[in-house]
């Protein structure tokens, strides 16, 4: 339980997808123009993470690993399987959401297809794959059970959402600022994100 809690807090603040590992930058920069849409994208990302990371975990441990279904180490197929799972699940999620909850679909609709190529999703699966090797006794990053993958996915998703909503809020205000010409647009956004990342660095002293 304690491990799950520290994994959760770490994934949100310390190992923040955006500020510590720069994952999902493309859509992060493209869709952060206003708070409402960025919140929608954030929720969609969290949602897809919650489905794909556990599925990829099961794939990795039950099928690809050396003691898995085929008895040999098939890790070299992991990239292909993970990306296929992600692309497939995004589409499946889109269809399911459309069928059962039109309101949610309208809110997330346009973002779902974008998510297949969001590196945050793939990155979370690859980090998960790496963290299976870690020892939960010595590392609060370790993922050693299916439950941990849900905790990690939720934390990573919330962390990503937090980052994109914060940037969108700043950008809404920054529209009124007098930015030097060459820095207008992309340049100043990067510098802003850099400063935000610095602020998030203070969480790295957090002893959990």
């Amino acid at each position: 339980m304690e491990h799950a809690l520290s994994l959760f807090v770490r994934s949100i603040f310390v190992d923040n997808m955006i500020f510590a590992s720069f994952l999902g930058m493309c859509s992060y920069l493209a869709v952060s123009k206003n708070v409402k849409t960025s919140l929608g994208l954030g929720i969609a990302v969290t949602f897809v993470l919650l489905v794909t990371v556990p599925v990829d975990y099961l794939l990795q441990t039950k099928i690809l690993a050396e003691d898995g279904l085929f008895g040999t180490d098939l890790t070299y197929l992991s990239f292909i399987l993970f990306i296929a799972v992600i692309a497939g699940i995004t589409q499946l999620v889109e269809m399911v959401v459309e069928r059962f909850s039109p309101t949610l679909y309208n809110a997330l609709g346009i973002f779902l297809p974008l998510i297949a190529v969001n590196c945050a999703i793939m990155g979370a699966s690859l980090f998960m794959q790496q963290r299976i090797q870690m020892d939960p006794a010595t590392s609060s990053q370790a993922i050693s059970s299916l439950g941990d993958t849900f905790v990690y996915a939720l934390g990573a998703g919330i962390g990503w959402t937090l980052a994109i909503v914060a940037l969108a809020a700043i950008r809404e205000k920054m529209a009124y600022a007098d930015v030097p010409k060459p820095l207008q647009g992309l340049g100043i956004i990067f510098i802003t994100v850099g400063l935000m990342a610095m602020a998030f660095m203070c969480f790295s002293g957090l002893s959990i």
Partner: protein
Amino acid sequence: MSQLFSKDNRQILTAPLNGDNPIMIQILGICSALAVTAQLEPAIVMGLSVTVITAFSNVIISIIRKTIPNRIRIIIQLVVVAALVTVVSMVLKAFAYDVSVKLSVYVGLIITNCILMGRLEAFAMMNKPWESFLDGIGNGLGYAWILVVIGAVRELLGSGTLLGYTIIPQGAYDAGYVNNGMMTMPAMALILLGIVIGVHRAVNKDIKS
């Protein structure tokens, strides 16, 4: 030969280096650009890997572009890219182990590097293999040189070395110079990239933001 390097083809190769740079103008593939640039060596390896993968995935998709069923187009592209990335990551593990440890998951993340999918969709699906190859090389190098610039600045200011060789003389340290540890932190990568983009825009005034 002259046909292979006609004016149009040279244009395809050189445009992404500057005016149509994937990172600075198209804002593609930023994730890995930032994460692997704390030192110069991984930045160079990452840049080369992306160049190789972009070029070859462009060629492969361009060759089979007429046979790909439209409905599963994206999946086929992803599978080709993922296969190439897997090969590159295995080659790195076998021949450049230290760098592959440093790059860790970011090699796998080349799959979701938007530059690849962007070029496949926008160029390789509509052009012949040779042009696609040039386009891939051009975009890969356009991506690589930004990585190299940021990696060089961060390593030089952050640890006083380049490719692991000490550059800042001992005398400078004796005189009170201190390495800027901040440069090795992720945050500075973002700020440096912001500055690089700013300088690039200031020099090329005709580029719209």
